[in-house]
């Protein structure tokens, strides 16, 4: 039995993970990217693998499974992916936020996620940089961080090690469709055929299928991030503000006249293994535009100062921005496309693509195997 080849379009963290799990299932993945790998959203983001931020429901379920896979990957991959189970805090500014979150906490527990409500006094013991003026925090030891650049590289290294093919600078210009079936791709470097094609082209995913009448809405949602100088480990947890969750799931609760909410700013902060802080972020609809703006970066700084005044002397050295692939219902698009047999989607992870990358890869590989393409 010869192994079947599967083409994966897009070498971000999602495409790399799909290729990795396909390889694990016994396929020969061929991963193509228009540029070098991992240069788009998957290297313009943070690396939090937060459970608490996921809407209780299918997303939280996926995230919990993904976390288990990260634990395995960090053991298995020889490349250090900087996966650290630091634990996370959701910061509550006031009673109102606490009330919303308490409801969520109950639901989270039904999914097996253990969370604990802390007073601000207790929270400051864990994390002294926090402001005394906060109301409190919710703690979970299930939250972790990872270095997304390293994850992408590590997965690719492993794919190549086991005989998979990766082709950088190979831009997919069209699908190869014969009698309604997708059987390959047309690229700037020629045609390639395979038993199946996985579309993991991030914010570009829908443009590839539009001419075949399948055009899921994937909207780029910009996020700006600050990077600080490196300093000794100080920020011990991954922290997000409750209004980040509100911005994510309940935009209607936010005051649209405030600049913070116009830009969709909610704080997500982590100190990386290398000592730098990554502080995010905005949530803006500005098309394919990767600029960072004065208003955006200042608003992020303002908000973090409110939460963690202890960081006031830390120098910001850079800002950057990435484009989250957002779908209409906020859930990723995973699996076969009815209209185009042979094509599978793995896209639309918005702000959770890092956390969900492993489970996405696994699901896709399982689905492809189930269709009996490997026979």
């Amino acid at each position, binding site marked *: 039995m010869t192994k079947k080849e599967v083409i994966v379009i897009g070498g971000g963290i999602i495409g790399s993970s799909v290729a990795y799990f396909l390889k694990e299932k016994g396929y020969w993945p061929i991963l193509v990217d228009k540029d*070098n790998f991992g240069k788009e959203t998957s290297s313009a983001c943070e690396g939090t693998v937060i459970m608490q931020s996921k809407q209780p429901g299918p997303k939280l379920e996926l995230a919990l499974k993904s976390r288990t896979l990260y634990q395995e990957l960090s053991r298995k991959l020889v490349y250090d992916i900087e996966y650290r189970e630091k634990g996370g805090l959701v910061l509550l500014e006031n009673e109102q936020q606490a009330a919303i979150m308490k409801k969520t906490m109950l639901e989270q527990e039904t999914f097996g996620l253990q969370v604990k409500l802390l007073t601000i006094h207790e929270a400051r013991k864990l994390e002294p940089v926090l402001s005394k003026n906060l109301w409190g925090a919710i703690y979970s030891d299930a939250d972790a961080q990872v270095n997304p650049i390293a994850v992408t590289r590590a997965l690719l290294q492993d794919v190549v090690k*086991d005989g998979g093919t990766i082709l950088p600078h190979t831009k997919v210009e069209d699908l190869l469709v014969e009698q309604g079936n997708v059987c390959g791709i047309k690229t700037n470097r020629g045609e390639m055929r395979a038993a199946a094609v996985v579309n993991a082209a991030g914010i570009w995913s829908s443009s590839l299928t539009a001419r075949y009448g399948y055009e899921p809405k994937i909207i780029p949602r910009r996020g700006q991030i600050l990077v600080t100088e490196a300093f000794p480990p100080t920020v011990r947890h991954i922290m997000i503000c409750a209004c980040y969750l509100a911005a994510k799931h309940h935009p209607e609760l936010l005051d649209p006249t405030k600049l913070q909410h116009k830009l969709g700013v909610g704080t997500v902060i982590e100190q990386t293994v290398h000592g730098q802080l990554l502080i995010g972020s905005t949530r803006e609809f500005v098309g394919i535009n990767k600029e960072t703006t004065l208003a955006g970066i*200042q608003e992020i700084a303002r908000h973090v*100062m409110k939460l963690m005044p202890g960081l006031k002397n830390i*120098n910001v*050295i850079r800002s950057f921005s990435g484009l989250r692939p957002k779908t209409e219902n906020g859930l990723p698009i995973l699996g076969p496309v009815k209209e185009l047999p042979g094509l599978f989607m793995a896209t639309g992870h918005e702000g959770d693509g890092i956390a969900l990358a492993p489970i996405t890869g696994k699901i896709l590989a399982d689905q492809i195997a189930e269709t009996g393409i490997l026979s």
Partner: protein
Amino acid sequence: MKCGLIYDGCLSQAETASVLPAAERFAKGPVAVIECIQDIPCNPCEKSCPHQAIIIGDNITAVPRLQADRCVGCGLCAAQCPGLAIFIVDASYSATEAVITLPYEYYPLPKEGDIVMGVSRSGAAVAKARVLKVRRETAAYGTILVSITVPKKFMHTIRSFRALREADKRIVCRCEEITETEIRLAVRQGANTVKDVKLATRAGMGACQGTSCRREISRIIAEETGASPEEILPPRFRMPVRPIPLAQLAAEEGKND
């Protein structure tokens, strides 16, 4: 060019995969990696193993098979293999580092504690390594076993070492302490823009944001790829162009919208 042992003298990636014990075995501690894939008539490794972990059998041209669960990683086979084709890899050494024990037959011998340059199967510099142990086995007829610690991600890449050279010590990115050699390696592996180099090595990610190394990195890329220096564009510039404390960045709301 075709790759593989018979074409360039280095195992290809697929060939490497075929000789590596399972990932689970690596996690358990030191294990032999036998990089001998041709049916040549040779069998001293089989006899060298006190645990009968290597099997060749009566057909002396058979390729040695490692029974990884029997192997304790003692290194006697590595010391005796006439082809110097056996390495002991200990992935359990620490969270971030692995130990590679390799046969060595050059003078001068390294000293324990020396910092050396770990090199790949094709002699390319990969990452700095520290000499942990220098061991002489009587059964090895003079072959020395040298154990070096290497970053774990390179435990299947580094297969020898050499003394540090000027370029290995020459730091190009001061903030992240990235050397010329590391940058050249990244370029040879396909990074052909300043951003690619940054993603591959972290060069330029530090406090000065590439102010001091950007040009140097461009020069190295041009040199390695044969491009003219004008073709190598600087990376994308971002605010703030000077380090600025968070508190100052968070100037009052409304001033700038």
